[in-house]
């Protein structure tokens, strides 16, 4: 019945569910709000499943396309469609939303309906970002998703939440405005079209490409985040509630990386080739510099936040290797980081809910009290350190392999993550989990409950499955990536 409008469902089901949750009103109906939210999130995930089962891996053309006029005066369309690059991201987002709703089940006791609604609405908006094929539609979703996120950090966050929310907002604002200007320029250059695929074939001079390259780079680079526009992320993570951190790390960062593939590479191929060195340098700095910075952290959330930046450095590095191995490596790394960072923030949430501290020094000897938790945490720590047979390995491996082909020294710097990633992750693990219990409050900590086992267990399966058998993921991506690379290889200079 809805076969023609799956993408619309994927976007609007969570949003409408969010509105329904909001309608439950105050915290007197908190239980109802939770159940509606869970039903909405599950439904949102279920409607996304046909995207996988009905996906044709043999074509690079957009699939599940919907197109309707929206603002005819400016030739703006409600135009949706997915390819092998965006489809996995929509699935990841719909999946993480379910987890986030479950994760906030007991922890959030204040403004429950609003909290759940914010996540559901954000989920729909993010799906909109990944599905949009119209520039203005993209822009609306892209900006719109920030509002719930801003509220999540600003309302349910920690003591310094207002500073963090503002910093996040300011960072993203400048880039977004420059992006809008670029889009309007593209509208005129393409003869009055906001269609992203039309832009992919629009002829552009080198100066225009270069200027737009930096505009888009700023807009998306802040989201990724790339060094040196990354400092909002640790602050936002530290202040955000667990669910906020999960979505922030698992999904929001991917929006930035996705922009590189949908806009920068295909629309500005000449500038991308010319300025690849610049992005590569920033990516390598992210890997090495941030790897070292993570080592100096005493707050677990900050540590994982910095680790996210380093891992996203691999994503952008892979993109600018201009090879299927590198580009798909970046994409695989995005999905994997979605699982692993979500799991790690959930782990920190599990600990925080019990001890109300994120400081490494307040813990120690957790394994004595929470052996099941320690086992899960070990798996995700190892995945974060890029151990083979976990998803964390696949993307890093592919990108290092791709980099070795382009320039040995790129691979050299990138491979330092093997040492730094293991060092900061396992050093934290040692101080938190191993040893004797020294803090009397740790003595009272209870092992994970059924709800937490469900959350961590599902993610553990994802992490291992993707590590042992990544083929289904790359199969979905490959044709679209090859097509994208063909676009990149074609000069668009007049």
């Amino acid at each position, binding site marked *: 019945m809805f076969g023609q409008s799956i993408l619309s469902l994927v976007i609007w089901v969570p949003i409408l569910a969010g509105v329904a949750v909001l309608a439950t009103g105050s915290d007197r109906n908190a239980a109802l709000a939770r159940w509606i939210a869970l039903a909405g999130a599950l439904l949102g995930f279920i409607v996304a499943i046909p995207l996988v089962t009905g996906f044709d891996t043999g074509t690079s053309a957009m699939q599940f396309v919907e197109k309707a006029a929206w603002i005819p005066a400016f030739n703006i369309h409600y135009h949706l469609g997915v390819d092998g690059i965006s489809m996995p991201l929509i699935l990841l987002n719909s999946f993480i939303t379910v987890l986030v709703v479950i994760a906030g089940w007991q922890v959030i006791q204040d403004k429950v309906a609003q909290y759940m609604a914010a996540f559901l609405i954000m989920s729909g908006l993010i799906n909109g970002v990944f599905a949009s094929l119209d520039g203005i539609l993209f822009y609306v979703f892209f900006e719109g998703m920030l509002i719930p996120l801003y509220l999540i950090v600003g309302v349910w966050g920690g003591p310094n939440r207002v500073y963090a929310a503002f*910093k996040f907002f*300011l*960072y993203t604002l400048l880039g977004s405005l420059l992006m809008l200007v670029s889009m309007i320029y593209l509208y005129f250059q393409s003869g009055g079209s906001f269609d992203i695929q039309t832009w992919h074939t629009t002829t552009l001079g080198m100066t225009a490409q270069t200027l737009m390259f930096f505009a888009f780079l700023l807009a998306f680079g802040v989201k990724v985040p790339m060094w*040196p526009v990354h*400092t*909002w992320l640790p602050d936002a993570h530290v202040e955000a509630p667990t669910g906020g951190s999960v979505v922030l790390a698992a999904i929001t960062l991917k929006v930035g990386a996705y922009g590189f593939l949908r806009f920068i590479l295909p629309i500005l191929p000449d500038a991308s080739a010319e300025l690849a060195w610049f992005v590569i340098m920033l990516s390598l700095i992210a890997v090495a*510099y941030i790897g*070292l*910075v*993570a*080592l*100096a*952290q005493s707050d677990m959330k900050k540590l994982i936040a910095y680790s996210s930046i380093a891992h996203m450095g691999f994503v952008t590095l892979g993109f600018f290797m201009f090879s*299927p*191995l590198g580009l*798909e490596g970046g994409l695989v790394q995005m999905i994997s980081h979605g699982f692993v960072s979500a799991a790690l923030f959930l782990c920190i949430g599990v600990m925080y809910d019990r001890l109300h501290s994120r400081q490494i020094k307040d813990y120690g*000897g957790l*394994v*004595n009290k929470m052996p099941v938790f320690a086992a899960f945490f070990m798996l995700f720590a*190892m995945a974060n350190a890029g*151990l*083979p*047979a976990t998803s964390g*390995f*696949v993307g890093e*491996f592919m990108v*290092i*392999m791709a*980099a*070795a*082909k382009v320039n*040995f*020294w790129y*691979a*050299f710097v990138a*491979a*330092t993550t*093997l*040492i*730094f990633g*293991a*060092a900061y992750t*396992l*050093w934290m693990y*040692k101080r938190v*989990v*191993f*040893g*004797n219990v020294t803090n009397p409050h740790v003595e009272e900590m209870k092992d994970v409950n059924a709800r937490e086992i469900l959350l961590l267990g599902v993610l553990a399966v994802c992490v291992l499955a993707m590590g042992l*058998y*990544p*083929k289904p993921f*790359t*199969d979905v991506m*490959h044709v679209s990536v*090859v097509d994208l690379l063909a676009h990149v290889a074609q000069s668009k200079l007049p």
Partner: protein
Amino acid sequence: MDMQTLYLIIPLAPLFGAIVAGLFGRLVGRTGAHVVTIAGVAISFIASVLVFQDVRAGNTFNGTVYTWMVLGDLSFEIGFLIDSLTAMMMLVVTFVSLMVHIYTIGYMHDDPGYQRFFSYISLFTFSMLMLVMSNNFLQLFFGWEAVGLVSYLLIGFWYQKETAIYANLKAFLVNRVGDFGFILGIGLVLAYFGSLDYATVFAKAPSMATETITLWPDTAWSLMTVIGILLFIGAMGKSAQFPLHVWLPDSMEGPTPISALIHAATMVTAGNFMVARMSPLYELSDVALSFIMVIGAITALFMGFLGIVQNDIKRVVAYSTLSQLGYMTVALGASAYSVAVFHLMTHAFFKALLFLAAGSVIIAMHHNQDIRYMGGLRKYMPITWITSLIGSLALIGTPFLSGFYSKETIIEAVRLSNLPVADIAYWAVVIGVFVTAFYSFRMYFLVFHGKERFHQGHAHGNEPDTHHDEHHGGTPHETPWVVTGPLLALALPSLAIGYMTVEAMLYGDFFGNAIYVSDRHQVMHDLNQNFHGAAAMGLHAVVTLPFWLAVAGVGLAAFFYLKRPDIPAAIAQRFKFLHQLLLNKYWFDELYSWVFAKGARFLGGFLWRRGDQNVIDGVFVNGTAHLVERFSRLVKAFQSGYIYHYAFAMLIGVFALVTWFARLN
């Protein structure tokens, strides 16, 4: 059942045991855990015997199990390569693992983590088998990291012990430094060969012999040298070669069964195995081979010295392991790959034996590991005593015992090698023979002979005493059969495996195509000229230098530690600096701790505070905010709301505009 099913069963049977014991440990109980894991490894061992016979009959296999990932024409696979090298490794791994599994029943008898321990050692067996059975670099790396993970988990098995959780982190990170080189090597292989499949890469290797790579502008490096050294850096981490050796002695913090299995017999030899497997690549670069030989020689000699001053029974054996790994590495450098693998095999038996015997002693001593508080144990523990003696004799290269054939051939191979560094390496391995004999028998005499000193022992053991202290102060007694059984089972190959297999493995066609030696490297050919059978080789030994050096080492140890214990003390006094140098392991731990561990944390802290907080946040982010604020304050001043301010400004504006237009015209 066809052979391919058998190949699959070999790694999967231990994996199944590991999963059952690990996830359902509480359900199956202690007995269930050891039954299921031992059954798994036993099946794996029996299947390995069958595979070995099949390979001896001339059947090899190279095929895919499943496709891991495909990108266009680039395909990554999980697959098996079964040839004589693999078959031999499988046999060694499963046999030693089986012995260690049985031994663990006795050794970990009272440990609360019993099921977990069995799960880990079975998981290790699975990982190690995947490593040796691999037919491509990707799976090799999988196994490589997986054995590292299990090693990490097992060194830190007693997670409450501060030294253990320090040691396991250190082991993992030092190995990661090796892996850093390793993955870059793999990256270059993929970049230049376009495949990670062994067969494809090896077939293409000769055409790459003269290929160069520009690592630095205007410099051309031989590609095979760069790849060879990078891959070998991985081996240096895994096989604990100087200067990445620092983790192995500390790994002794783990329970003794895994010291035998992982840190002596199997995992640490993975690096040597890897180089032997890559012989078609290494044969193309004399520079890489020379590098390997130098590193091996340094490790063989200088790690041996450290064994002399150790008082912890396990650490003596650990330094002995380092030194023996150095011997294998030297042999690889001399292009005597088969000899290195041969020593790998004999060493696996006698070193596992020595470790398990040391564990037996540790049980009897209630987990006191200090050999100064032992002595005279031969009366109380006859089986441990005899098997230890066999292990020690095999280690020092007593003619006709297993270690003799492998070590003697290594020394000869280095002598015959035509690499420029072979002369130095030769003296290192020859002097190493004396050192080995001395520290081995120093330990042997201090433990099993001389005065009984165990009643004076107050020093606390290294491992938590899981046995109850009820028999403390009583006389030591022999350990139960689950402990002594494996000792006896390992003593047999330690005695005889060298004599039985030297001819087939080194001079026969055993390795066939599994190992490739270029015509330029004549060592194996020359060795073959001088070889006239295992018996003749044993008899001939008495006129060779290494034999008399070994005799001298044993004699000196007997004199020092049985007759005149005051002499070594006096020497330690007289040469204080040297003694301190050895006791502090050349200060490598301190150096690394300062430069790398502290250095990285300092640099990280510096970048964070100065880079992130002061510059990016301080100047740019908050600076922008301040700038905007200041600007808006300035602008605010103009918007005073007084009409005469605006009127005045307008007038000035009109005046300025008029002036400008006037000038234009």
